[in-house]
């Protein structure tokens, strides 16, 4: 229900996000951890998400695939570390198109008067790996092409 904040500082192999949802923490946690709910929201609408396995416990593994109508499929997998709970869940994340490039993602859920602040913290193996994964690993998620150059320059100049 609010704009998502993204922080990706130069020189630090990390990406932080923060987003508030208009729902209690228990429900948001369910949406993040129950496979039949997760497939209903994770990823752009043009992809159908299929969960192969989702073993939500310390050491449990997960794998899902995003497939589009054109026959493109993108697989992801990882492992849960520590007992996942509404206080937080830690998991590794690997895009199958770039094996060996792994990030460690921590998600926390903080309830605030009936709303829930979801924070994610993704740590990459290096700044270069972060930049490559964030730009190329997510490129398939782009809705339509690129932002217009004029818009970008407008923003850059406004930030002078």
């Amino acid at each position, binding site marked *: 229900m609010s704009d998502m904040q993204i922080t990706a500082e130069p020189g630090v192999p990390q990406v932080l996000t923060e987003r508030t949802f208009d*729902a209690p923490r228990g429900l948001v946690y369910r949406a993040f951890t129950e496979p039949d709910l997760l497939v209903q929201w994770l990823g752009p609408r043009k992809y159908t998400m299929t969960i192969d396995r989702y073993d939500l416990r310390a050491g449990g593994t997960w794998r899902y695939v995003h497939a589009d109508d054109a026959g493109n499929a993108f697989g992801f997998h990882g492992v849960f570390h520590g007992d996942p709970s509404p206080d937080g869940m830690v998991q590794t994340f690997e895009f199958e198109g770039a094996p060996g490039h792994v990030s460690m993602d921590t998600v926390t859920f903080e309830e605030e008067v009936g709303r829930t602040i979801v924070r994610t913290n993704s740590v990459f193996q290096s700044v270069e790996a972060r930049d490559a994964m964030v730009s190329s690993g997510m*490129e398939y998620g782009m809705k339509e092409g690129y932002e217009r*150059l004029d818009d970008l320059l407008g923003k850059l100049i406004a930030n002078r």
Partner: protein
Amino acid sequence: MTAVAVPERLDAVFGALADPTRRAILGRLTHGEATVAELAAPFSVSQPAISRHLKVLERAGLISRTRRATARLSHLRAEPLRDATVWLAAYREFWEESYERLDELLEALQEQEAGEPRGRSRR
């Protein structure tokens, strides 16, 4: 997956964009090619200083320069800027669209929960 060469170039691009004069120069070049004198006109800096900024922009691949008679003309090149936006824009779009879908799901789930007691009492 195209990004292998992107991160190295991004360092140069972000470095070049970090300076307000260079951003203003790029802004001017969106309206078309320009000479060093034309680019220097709005600023209180010398033409050699503008030339130094142009070299940084050229190294980052943000502009190209050609010579016409005695004047050197600068042209904007869009490609590296596109990469620079894509770097975070793709990530942002992925999560923003996902989270919008999650908003809808959470709303539907809460309506369902609120509706359940009534549904049961009818039985």
